[in-house]
């Protein structure tokens, strides 16, 4: 089962560029592997999209293809103008959606 993990600093100063790290446990079946017994290709099942919103506005996104490793890790930056809430959304090939939220307090 896909379990998301996100690291966001708790506080930041106004307009500071923060670093966010995300990881979700997922097999990321590439669709290239063959089943050893049957010789048939194992169907593709990966996380194909990742989006980040801050106070409801999309600030970062990634389209993911099978070339990304299992348990996809992403690190990126965001410039935070105000306190608010990040929402992280991962979309699976099978239509499942995994979400998590993190808030940040901006001072000064």
């Amino acid at each position: 089962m896909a379990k998301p993990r996100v690291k966001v600093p708790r506080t930041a100063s106004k307009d500071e560029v923060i670093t966010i790290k995300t990881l979700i446990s997922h097999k990321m079946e590439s669709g290239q592997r063959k089943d050893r017994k049957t010789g048939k290709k194992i169907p593709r099942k990966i996380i194909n999209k990742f989006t980040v919103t801050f106070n409801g506005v999309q600030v970062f996104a990634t389209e993911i293809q099978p070339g990304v490793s299992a348990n996809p890790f992403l690190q990126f930056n965001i410039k935070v103008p105000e306190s608010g809430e990040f929402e992280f959304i991962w979309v699976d090939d099978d239509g499942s959606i995994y979400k998590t939220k993190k808030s940040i307090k901006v001072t000064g």
Partner: protein
Amino acid sequence: MELTKRELLLLGSGAIATMAVGLPTASAFAASAEVEKQIAAFAGGAKIGSGKVSLTAPEIAENGNTVPISVDVESPMTKADYVKSVMLLATGNPAPGVATFHFSPMSGQASATTRIRLAKTQEVIAVAKMSNGSVFMDKKVVKVTIGGCGG
């Protein structure tokens, strides 16, 4: 037939020479039609420049299943001038597409890190598209000891 020591040595050096010829050189990583097609589609007709983008990858990856790759693009990241997206391609994988990052002026800094799969020693490409439509590219060769596409 018995081989003399001299003949054996000759045979050996011949084999080494053939291997050396067979080794891939940088120019041998000619982009496949699929890779070129994806770059052209991403660039949308813009001329591809060099500079601005820097791709950070290990020279040698022991495990092709998870190779750390970072991409940084020089940009002021303001509403008027920012990096829209960066596409990563692994030219030697069965499917070259890896990921496309979409930045916004709120990114503050156009950089991203992820971990990718590399099936064999190959060239990794990062192509960046700016908000004004200009396109820049960087390439790195990564040597892979153990391939990462299963099978």
